[in-house]
């Protein structure tokens, strides 16, 4: 259908994002399309520039396209300018690979990293001609499948999605493909209802329509009951050995500009640091490291296949890989003199990190280091279990500035449980001391410290799932005072940059994160009133959300505040209690109480088990090195290796 789209493209901004044609993209021809039983449209529900680099979509795209019984194409949210033209000219939502209508696929799989992408799925469903509500769909419509971290509480989206995939996607997409393939091969027995029944008993798949939710007089959930043969609780999927899944092998290389211009290699999955605010760290346990050799091969493959000049070593806390020193040194040696640089999302604050950073910058730039103390005071850092002492931080940044680094970025959160003004104001003192230490260590005044502050949103499956969310007015007021404190000393304050967003979007994110099925009607109303791209400040409208929440939730006896700023008690049925991330509910509760008491929790990677419950329930142990292997010393002949260009 590209000919239908093409005349519209000269009239929209950045048309290149809609044309596909990326290096390593895969487009099925008509014969292949006809011969393939299960066709997936994979959607990342944000703009192309954000969605294209998403690792999850890229991995599943390759995994599915390697299967003989499946094919996958991609789609992204279209900007309002193109949406209007598509409606005007009756052109449906399309994939960027084959420019096929999304409605022609068997599955529309959507990966939600953040709840603020929810309205964008509704736009795509509507443009694709797929009924918004799962109840209104029939066999001719794709199965709408939701995955990603937000899927661990999909309840606000259950009006709109047919199936939810919990946990790692590599294997479950194969299982879903098998179920759909067999059902189609047998002539679609029992229609769509039977297909959903079959998916409801597939490991890691949750079919919301197979569960009845009832509410009590207090507004909270009374019970969640499975109907038909659906299991009482759905357990997440866990990919055991990352070395068996070296994806993406051929990263997509966009023609348009995107937010990450690099090849990424996931060096381990999961995290056991136990930061209590961090949903990702909780729901991706246990830690599974990719081996040194596996990483070495993936980096080589990715650089050769993409031509990127930067490789990101991804994970939730990359410096924690048990062989990180060997990995970085080995890669820096391999790419010496090749203008290939490495990047490491680093969060740990210690001298070891500086050695790593120096190694990593050997072939590239040495601009800035990023640390995430997350909390301004020692007290609040104990509450969130982010155990970084200011002493360590100052020692680390002194070392960094002494070695030629010029800028330090510090990440914090505001609105944390038990937080008071003083906890936030201590961030200013910390920033000032960083500047002082930096000047002393570097011998000049030209050092920068940027403090970046995000609003805290309590998330499901974390010890803070019971916590009251701070009201945006409180957060905004604390940040105003913090700015004053930063600028109270002009001589130091002028070298401190401060970046933050207002607290309002965080409150809506909180509603969507911990909401139940009743929140679905708020999402739909916001979308009908024009809500799009809620993760973008220029498109987000707080008033649209608060008004829709008041109109839709009020008659049900609940409210925006009820879902966000209210503290839950231990016995309340949480909307996601029947979805099993492996964590013991009792352990989460104890850790929440421990947080309120200011107690710490160690990292079980290095210290004895504290029974969070994940290993027994996923049948998997933490997997950390040393692997006993070596980073294979690949010969690098030409700048990026290979023999494609002979010598003159």
């Amino acid at each position, binding site marked *: 259908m590209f000919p239908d789209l093409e005349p519209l493209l000269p009239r929209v901004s950045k*048309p290149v994002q809609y044309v596909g044609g990326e290096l390593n993209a895969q487009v099925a021809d008509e014969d292949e399309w006809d011969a393939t039983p299960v066709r997936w449209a994979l959607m990342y529900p944000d703009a192309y520039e954000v969605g294209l680099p998403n690792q999850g979509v890229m991995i599943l795209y390759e995994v599915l396209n390697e299967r003989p019984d499946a094919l996958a194409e991609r789609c992204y949210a279209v900007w309002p300018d193109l949406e209007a033209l598509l409606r005007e000219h009756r052109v449906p939502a399309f994939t960027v690979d084959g420019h096929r209508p999304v409605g022609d696929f068997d599955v529309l799989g959507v990966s939600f990293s953040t709840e603020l992408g929810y309205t964008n799925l509704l736009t795509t469903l509507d443009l694709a001609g797929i009924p918004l509500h799962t109840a209104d769909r029939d066999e001719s419509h794709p199965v709408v499948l939701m995955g990603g971290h937000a899927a661990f509480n999909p309840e606000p989206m259950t009006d709109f999605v047919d199936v939810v995939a919990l946990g790692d996607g590599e294997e479950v997409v194969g299982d879903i493909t098998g179920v759909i393939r067999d059902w189609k091969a047998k002539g679609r027995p029992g229609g769509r209802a039977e297909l959903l029944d079959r998916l409801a008993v597939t490991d890691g798949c949750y079919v919301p329509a197979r569960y009845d939710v009832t509410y009590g007089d207090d507004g909270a959930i009374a019970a969640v009951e499975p109907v038909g043969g659906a299991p009482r609780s759905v357990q997440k999927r866990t990919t055991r050995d990352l070395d068996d899944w070296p994806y993406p092998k051929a990263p997509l290389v966009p023609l*348009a500009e995107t937010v990450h211009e690099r090849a990424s290699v996931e060096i381990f999955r999961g995290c056991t640091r136990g930061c209590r605010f961090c949903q990702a760290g909780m729901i991706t346990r246990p830690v599974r490291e990719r081996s040194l050799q596996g990483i070495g091969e993936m980096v080589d493959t990715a650089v050769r296949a993409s031509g990127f000049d930067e490789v990101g070593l991804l994970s939730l806390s990359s410096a924690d890989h048990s062989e990180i020193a060997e990995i970085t040194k080995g890669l820096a040696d391999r790419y010496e003199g090749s203008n290939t640089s490495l990047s490491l999302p680093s969060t740990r604050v210690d001298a070891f990190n500086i050695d790593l950073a120096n190694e990593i910058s050997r072939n590239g730039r040495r601009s800035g280091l990023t640390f995430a103390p997350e909390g301004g005071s020692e007290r609040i850092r104990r509450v969130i279990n982010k155990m970084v002492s200011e002493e360590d931080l100052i020692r680390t940044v002194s070392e960094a500035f002494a070695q030629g680094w010029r800028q330090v970025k510090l990440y914090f959160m505001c609105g944390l449980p038990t937080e008071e003004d003083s906890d936030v104001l201590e961030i200013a003192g910390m920033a000032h001391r960083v500047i002082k230490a930096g000047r002393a260590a570097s011998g000049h005044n030209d050092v920068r410290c940027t403090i970046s502050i995000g609003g805290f949103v309590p998330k499901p499956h974390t010890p803070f799932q019971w916590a009251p969310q701070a009201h945006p007015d409180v957060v905004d007021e604390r940040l105003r005072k913090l700015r004053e404190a930063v600028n109270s000393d002009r001589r130091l304050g002028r070298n401190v940059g401060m970046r933050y967003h207002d607290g309002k979007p965080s409150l809506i994110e909180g509603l969507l994160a911990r909401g139940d099925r009743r929140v679905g009607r708020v999402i739909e109303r916001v979308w009908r009133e024009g809500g799009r791209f809620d993760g973008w400040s220029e498109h987000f409208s707080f008033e649209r959300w608060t008004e829709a929440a008041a109109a839709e939730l009020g008659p049900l006896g609940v409210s925006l505040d009820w879902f966000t700023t209210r503290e839950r008690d231990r016995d309340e049925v949480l909307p996601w209690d029947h979805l099993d991330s492996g964590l013991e509910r009792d352990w989460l509760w104890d850790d929440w109480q421990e947080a309120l008491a200011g107690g710490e929790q160690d990292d079980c990677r290095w210290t004895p088990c504290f029974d969070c419950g994940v290993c027994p329930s996923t049948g998997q142990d933490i997997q950390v090195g040393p692997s006993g292997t070596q980073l294979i010393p690949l010969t690098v002949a030409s700048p*990026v290796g290979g023999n494609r260009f002979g010598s003159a």
Partner: protein
Amino acid sequence: MARVRPGEAANPAPPTVQRIRVRFAKRGRLRFLSHRDIARAFERAVRRAGVPVSHSHGFSPHPRLSWIGAAPTGAASEAEYLEIGLTREVDPAQLVDALDRALPSGLDVLEAAVATPPALADRIDAVRWAVELPGVAEGELRAAVEALLAEESVVIERVTPSGRKQIDVRKALVKAAVVTASNGPGLATGTAAVAGCAILTAVVRQTTPAVRPDDVLGALDVVAGLTPPVPARATRMAQGLLDDSGELADPLGTDRVTAQV
């Protein structure tokens, strides 16, 4: 000027020993690439192809790719040019081949030549365009072109990010003609010419700001009220030095080697 601080290594970039000029096409749906998109795609392609491209010095070394007058976003082209700095001498034919294979289909490397004086910029002062106008009748277009050529000056206004600009289209226009779809120039927009699609060819002198195909269409609107029902598709067919007969001399000269496909 950046001071070298402790811990910062000087960049040991090897020098440029050869420069090769390349002609490439932007075709089909890749016509929607902007110049920045194309530059990024080439930077990655030279790396994938293992081309020994030289780099600028400093903390943020960039590959030495020099560009000349990119066609606008949305316009296809058969005649885009760049010059590549190399750290060792390579065979231009091999470069064409390796680079073309490393680029996505639609960015197609066509020919190359070792750079010799004068500079590429001094070998180009005009562009030949072909513009497909679906839904515009040939007779209507012919009348509009005749009306435009009859004027001495036709000024249109273009809104740019930096404000409104007055552009004299007629002054920059060297010649213009209408060709029928059946004997058209073989356009590269990926769409076969269809009946009822008039094609305009125009040779436009390089000016500041450059007169683009859209500006020519704007001028046709001014003189004859011509408004295409759907967006026109423009293709840059050639660039070069104008000779006395209004033809364009090939900027790569006689030394060029062409792709072996």
